[in-house]
């Protein structure tokens, strides 16, 4: 294996080797025959990630600030992390708007606990950033910022019978994250990392791959239970579900403008 690879090439190659199962699970979600029905659950899962990842990135930036006086890498990372945390700020509103367009009230989102996979995914990054080194979050970013193309999403909307207006979160990220990935690679390749620093980043990426695979499994499992009223008391139901009159009411209000 050539050792003249850049930091980003090496990190992405390691992520790629370890992402086979994650890719399989993600593929099951993206190509699900009932994607239109599953999509609100997927958005709920994404909301849990987005609402917590921005403060986590901000915390990592603050940790880099704290270390900066005696740690060259932390001083180099801090500006990037502050900017990136700010770039991601407020995106949870996009998810809520998409759900609202589909007839799901934001109170329904707030009343549910996030998946354990989401708390493990984001919680592990808080831990690594605070108790190991904030360079860890670069492994997380490299895994999660990996969007579908706008063309794929537009085709998906047609295939699943979803209004394109309900896919604003995914579409905006498909445009934004292309720029973010280029910025990320440029920043990472300019860093001079020790083996230990690189190990922290890669181990974090591997951790992220594993918890993200669990995230997609959670989406599939929660959706599979949604047909069982007893098991799915707190899982999203379609707006047409008779027992959820409040949902229908919201859907009705949306439809009437």
């Amino acid at each position, binding site marked *: *294996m050539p050792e003249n690879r850049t930091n980003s090439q090496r990190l992405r190659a390691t992520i*790629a*080797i*370890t992402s086979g*199962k994650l*890719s399989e699970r*993600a593929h099951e979600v993206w190509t699900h025959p009932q994607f239109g029905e599953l999509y609100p659950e997927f958005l709920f899962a994404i909301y849990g990630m987005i609402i917590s990842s921005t403060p986590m990135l901000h915390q990592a930036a603050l940790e880099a600030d704290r270390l900066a006086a005696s740690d060259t890498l932390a001083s180099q990372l801090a500006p990037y992390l502050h900017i990136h945390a700010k770039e991601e700020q407020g995106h949870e509103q996009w998810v809520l708007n998409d759900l609202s367009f589909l007839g799901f009230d934001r109170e329904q989102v707030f009343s549910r606990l996030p998946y354990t996979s989401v708390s493990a995914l984001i919680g592990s990054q808080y831990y690594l950033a605070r108790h190991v080194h904030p360079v860890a979050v670069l492994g997380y970013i490299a895994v999660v*910022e990996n969007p579908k193309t706008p063309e794929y999403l537009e085709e998906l909307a047609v295939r699943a019978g979803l209004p394109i207006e309900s896919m604003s979160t995914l579409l905006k990220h498909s445009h934004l994250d292309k720029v973010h990935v280029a910025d990320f690679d440029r920043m990472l390749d300019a860093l001079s990392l020790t083996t230990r620093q690189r190990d922290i980043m*890669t181990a974090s990426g591997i*951790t992220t791959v594993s918890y993200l695979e669990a995230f997609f499994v959670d989406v599939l499992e929660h959706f599979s239970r949604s047909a069982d009223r007893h098991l799915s008391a707190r899982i999203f139901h379609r707006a047409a579900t008779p027992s959820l009159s409040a949902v229908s009411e919201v859907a009705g209000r949306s439809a009437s403008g």
Partner: protein
Amino acid sequence: MTNVEQLLQAGIIPSPNPLTPEQLEALNALTSVEVDALISIHIKLVGPFKPIDFVGTCF
């Protein structure tokens, strides 16, 4: 013991080994900390796998 031998022993690489020679070479280039991370989080390595497959996995 090579990285691949450790990963086989830990069940991270399933038997029969589905990975390509390129993947095995890449695994042998990992550091011991990276190998420990794979083992401790029980990631299962599957193959054949092309890096391009990962593009667009997330959001």
